[in-house]
């Protein structure tokens, strides 16, 4: 009797834990639901096409223009430029840590990368604003140091830790037999890394890169403080831009409750959410489809 009771209790607990574990999905569904209920009403005012491809974002003028194309451009350019900096740096650091560095050095560098990930975004934004911006302005003789390039630089240092630590895991878990085989054939250490180890861990590295870019496109405080805030399609990398998260964060406080502007900002949130959601799904698909299974991954 006692035994049966415990079994019942066990079964119940199993369901309780399952129920709690679905909390993450519930929250994700709630986020989607509330974004859409607050964002979709803007479509009564503008069509989807005008909203996404409209070139003018003047939400407070009369009549207001709700075209987020400049904001999307801002986000995409900042992310691409930051990826151009963070991918080489992140992957190279990962290769260095996993393949080249001595164990003792690895013990020191790895925590540094993790600490870099832990710096609050507002501090990095503040640093970009008061230190990097004046420096860029003097050094490159541009009208404002708060621009696309500065924001991309700061974002790169926020996404390097993600790219680095995930790539390092992938590289580290490439089977040793591959390395030994390559070295035994007379290849140098470098040739082994570039022709054998990297191709073997490419799926993990791609996942890392996508997740790093997803972090960069969604990052708010850095672009809010450093990107300059001009809602226009940039002509050069030293033009100020206004990426989507910056627009939402800066304007939400002033937007009249449940007015057009308020709904437009939520709709911008939907677009941003769809961007990162796609990035994450792609990363997840790559990770699952090309999972490294021992030597079979080559």
């Amino acid at each position, binding site marked *: 009797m006692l035994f049966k009771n415990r079994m019942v209790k066990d079964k119940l607990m199993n369901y309780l834990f399952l129920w709690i574990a679905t909390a993450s999905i519930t929250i*994700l569904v709630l986020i989607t639901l509330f974004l859409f209920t607050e964002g979709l009403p803007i479509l009564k005012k503008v069509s989807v096409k005008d909203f996404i491809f409209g070139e003018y974002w003047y939400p407070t003028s009369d009549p207001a223009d709700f075209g987020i194309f400049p904001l999307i451009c801002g986000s995409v350019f900042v992310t691409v430029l930051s990826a151009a900096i963070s991918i080489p740096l992140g992957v190279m650091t990962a290769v260095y840590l996993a393949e080249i560095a001595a164990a003792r050095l690895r013990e020191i560098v790895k925590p540094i990368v993790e600490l870099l990930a832990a710096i609050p975004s507002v501090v990095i934004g503040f640093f970009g604003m008061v230190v990097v911006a004046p420096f860029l302005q003097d050094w490159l003789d541009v009208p404002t140091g708060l621009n696309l390039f500065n924001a991309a630089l700061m974002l790169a240092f926020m996404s390097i830790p993600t790219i680095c630590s995930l790539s390092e895991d992938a590289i580290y878990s490439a089977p040793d037999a591959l390395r030994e085989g390559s070295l035994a054939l007379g290849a140098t250490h470098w040739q082994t890394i570039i022709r054998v180890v990297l191709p073997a861990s490419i799926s993990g590295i791609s996942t890392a890169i996508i997740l790093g870019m997803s972090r960069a496109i969604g990052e708010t405080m850095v672009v809010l403080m450093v990107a300059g805030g001009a809602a226009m399609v940039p002509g050069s990398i030293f033009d100020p831009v206004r990426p989507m998260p910056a627009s939402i964060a800066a304007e939400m406080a002033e937007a009249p409750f449940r007015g057009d502007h308020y709904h437009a900002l939520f709709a911008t949130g939907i677009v941003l959410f769809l961007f990162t959601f796609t990035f*994450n799904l792609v990363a997840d698909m790559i990770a699952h489809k090309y999972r490294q299974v021992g030597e079979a991954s080559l």
Partner: protein
Amino acid sequence: MTNSGTIQQGIKIQPVCETTDKKADAGCAKLFMAKRRRRIIIQQIMFILFRIAAMINGIALFIIVFFIVANGLKAINWTFLSTPPVDSMTKGGILPCIVGTLCLSLGAIVVSFPIGVASAIYLNEYARPGRILRIIRLGISNLAGVPSVVFGLFGLAFFVIWMKMGVSILAGALTLGVMTLPVIIGSTEEALKAVPDTYREASLGLGATKLQTIFWVVLPAALPGILTGGILGISRAAGETAPIMFTAAVFYTPDLPSSIFDEIMALPYHIYVLATAGTEIEATRHLQYGTALVLICLVLGMNLIAILYRSKLRKKM
């Protein structure tokens, strides 16, 4: 360099061409050596480049921390830490911000820790591979990727407006809690995975049920790792700005919070406000640096403890 260097030196060089002429043979060997030397040189150059890439990260961290510490130290004294801002935030301290950030991050962890640990227990101890597990994992990884400003929008729409909490500590803590959930789940799972299966088998073999095994054997063994995750969660919540902008934080409030339905000031938001919208941005620079230093000490300090503790734990395993 790892042990592969010694492997290379141990390799005997095979003749690349077979001739009976001894002179030609020597020429071949020379050519081969030259080729090999060139490859070694390329390798050396590449390794130096990679080393530089790794160093740039360290330098970046150092420069950021250096600027904040060098400029922030001047602002920090006991008055700065123990009084509220005065004269429309151009003078005085940051006491309400410190209290606010502590309330928010501790509140967030109270929300996310139990849910996160229970989720991780399900994923690691109960779940069998299959569709449900796959969907839950996909949900968690996507939740981890949601931009912080979208969490802010969600908190505003759901907690502040729909659940009628208003702009309050409660709404902010719940929003941050939702955001830190993936952090807690991830580190708890890692801690649970590190518990050897022999512990579980021994406990089950003694006649304990699965639930008893989890509570009396697995959780105690994984506790240090789980707590480390909790610390990381607190520090993540303490440093975030965007989620609390619409849900909890305000520009200025002179009083310390008296209930969870009060609005509050918070360190990250205070930095942002002073640096972009303050009345005298240049004149309050030292206050901004000081606030940033306090925030960085709080966040990096907690992270350093967690990282060092974790690497010590990993070595033990």
